[in-house]
């Protein structure tokens, strides 16, 4: 049993890392917003989904114009990323403006309810746009970066099987890492980042220090949503097929990742995302081995939710959270 698990371990790690980086970048959006407003932005998963659709729309447009072969794929992806990030960034700002700002002093459950509302509306709007355009809401874009790279992990040690990945995996990983480093730099080194941290620490005092709190909150939403949208593009490139409902459960899992790492903590979110991705992939591949066939891969979501519940109950501050957590 152990033997089989170890054999497939390199491949599980690679696939887990792919999923984990997606969770990590989406978790950043949750963590930033939570850090600054103490609000779970339920609609963040839908922003991720919108990003995936915007990216795929651009990709389909490019391929129907026949441009896909004349421009290098990496350039296409960069265009997709930038356009999707900017649009979803504004979408996020708009959502904050319409649904959260009027409720800033309302009881805390009320913004949560608008967030669910926004989430539903976005799902349905995207659905009928997709259906009007394509006749079906499950959309498949042209594939990019499909070349397989084979790593002979069996040569390291004979206990491993060989593993392989698509070149798009490298792309996802590299871009995600760039995004995370850029965000870390932005939050810790720039003027806006400092202001964001100040607002999250104490909104009223920050306002007294001549920080425009509303503007900073808007910027936070823009940055968080742009990251979400960009991740959506990465997701679309990696998996090819998307539908309007990918955001909800993925958003929940990304939130789990944020909680796991310590909500409000940027590096925690990254760590939490990667851990969750690997654990989930490991569960899918090995749960039935571990339990002798009683529980199968279908329980992997239970696994993810159980982690969330256990962390919240026993270590609510998360892995990297400290009593005085470094917030965004």
């Amino acid at each position, binding site marked *: 049993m152990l033997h089989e698990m170890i054999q497939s371990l390199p491949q599980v790690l690679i696939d887990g890392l792919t999923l984990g980086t997606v969770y990590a970048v989406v978790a950043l959006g949750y963590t930033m917003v939570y850090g600054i407003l103490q609000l779970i932005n339920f609609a963040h998963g839908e922003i991720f989904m919108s990003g995936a659709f915007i990216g795929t729309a651009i990709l389909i447009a490019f391929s129907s114009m026949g441009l896909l072969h004349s421009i290098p794929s990496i350039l296409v992806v960069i265009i997709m990323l930038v356009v999707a990030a900017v649009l979803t960034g504004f979408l996020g700002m708009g959502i904050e403006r319409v649904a959260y700002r009027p409720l800033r002093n309302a009881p805390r459950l009320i913004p949560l309810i608008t967030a669910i*509302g926004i*989430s539903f*509306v976005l799902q349905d709007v995207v659905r009928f746009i997709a259906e009007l355009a394509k006749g079906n809401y499950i959309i498949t874009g042209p594939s990019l970066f499909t070349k397989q790279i084979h790593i002979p992990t069996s040569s390291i040690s004979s206990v491993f099987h060989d593993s392989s990945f698509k070149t798009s995996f490298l792309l996802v990983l590299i871009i995600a890492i760039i995004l995370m480093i850029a965000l870390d730099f932005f939050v810790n080194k720039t003027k806006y980042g400092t202001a964001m941290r100040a607002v999250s620490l104490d909104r009223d005092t920050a306002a007294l220090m001549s920080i425009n709190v509303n503007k900073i909150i808007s910027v936070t939403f823009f940055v968080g949503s742009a990251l979400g949208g960009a991740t959506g593009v990465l997701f679309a490139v990696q998996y090819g097929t998307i539908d309007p409902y990918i955001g909800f459960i993925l958003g929940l899992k990304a939130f789990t990742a944020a909680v796991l790492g310590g909500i409000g903590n940027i590096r925690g979110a990254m760590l939490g995302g990667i851990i969750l991705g690997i654990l989930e992939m490991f569960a899918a591949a090995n749960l039935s081995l571990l339990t002798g066939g009683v529980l*199968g891969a279908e329980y992997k979501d239970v696994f993810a*939710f*159980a982690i969330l519940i256990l962390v*919240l109950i026993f270590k609510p501050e998360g892995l990297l959270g400290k009593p005085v957590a470094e917030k965004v």
Partner: protein
Amino acid sequence: MKEKLSAFKLHKTPQLILFVAFVIVTSLALYFSQKSVISFLLLLSSLLFLYYMNLKNRTKWMIGLILLFILIPFASSGGPAFQSYMEVATMVGIYVSMALGLNIVVGMAGLLDMGFIAFFAVGAYAYSIFATPQASNFMPFGHYPLDGNSFWAFLIIGAIAAAITGVLIGVPVLRVKGDYLAIVTLGFGEIIRIVFNNSDSPINFTGGAMGIASVAHPKIFGYELSFPNQFYFVTLVILLFTLFAVLRLERSKLGRSWKAIRENEIAAQAMGIPLVKTKLMAFALGASFSGMMGVVFAAKQQFIDPTSFTLMESFTILVMVVLGGMGSVPGVILGAAVVTILNLQVLTELTNWVNQLNLSGVVSIPDALSPAKMQKFIFGALLIIFALYKTNGLIPAKNRVFDEKKLASDKSNSKDNDPKGNPMTTLKDKDSKEQTKIYS
């Protein structure tokens, strides 16, 4: 005009005359037409008008019961669509009861539970498993399926099973607060559904994704209940019981403790309210109403599978509570009725109408925009609009208003209710628009 209106509001007689005329007209229209959804809905809405009329509570209840038990079933029995009206009315009853249960948790105790449908599922499965041969897969004793007479016992068993589930989930969950609680309950709701969906191996408990078919119909005095009009009365009786219990609970010590916790947990604790116990009671009681209706649903549907208990259903019930007004019993009833009828009748009728238009070629509306698919959009928009502009819902919750003078004169009462220092007791104008804030 204004004076006339305000005079009208005070005078019972013209109100009553108009009301009776309304009921008669809609009933007749319903009775004599082949299928008239509009008159059915109008007849149902007479209950809402009744709520607003300037009558004694007892009279309102009497009229309401007559409408529900006699007039509505009788008036809709005229046309061939009788059973479909009764089907809709039964579903309304089931959802109203569930929404009342959720209202205890969300509205009164202020604990946002987003996995509420799990309790409904527990009740439904409890009856389905034992009223089909399913139970013989794992029960060492007894002979299954149990026959329809067991339905009545299962109403209580279902409620207890759901309450126990509520407590089991509640014990760990209540350590977290606010937004986290919402997420954790959502997670638990999904876990329960996934477990039901997968517990067909190694031992077949729930039939897994295949569901459980041919659930026994309830029997009473050897007579089998199988038609929607029979379930209508079953549902109605249970609903009235639920309503009675909820109204009593709201005004009990427990109900006041819930509201205290909702308004300020720390202050409530300081006043000597046991937090965990009170919250657990909210979870358990809310769950038990839902579980009871789960049993009715299983018996009516005769087929249960996990697709009836998705996240969307949990959200639907939440929409009902938010729409009606969190914490407000009449509001939640209205909210549940509106949402259920919207879902089952209005959207369907609209879709059929659009289909007809498309078929006859008058207009061509793309399939993507057909009303039946817009459910999520409509729910989402309702949630946003109500949260932004009408946070208190259609019929906002009101705390009972005490008359200070009366309380002071009645010394024995004043000891119990301690009127001094409570801002609510200083309200003298009954029509004052001041309402309690739902959460703080």
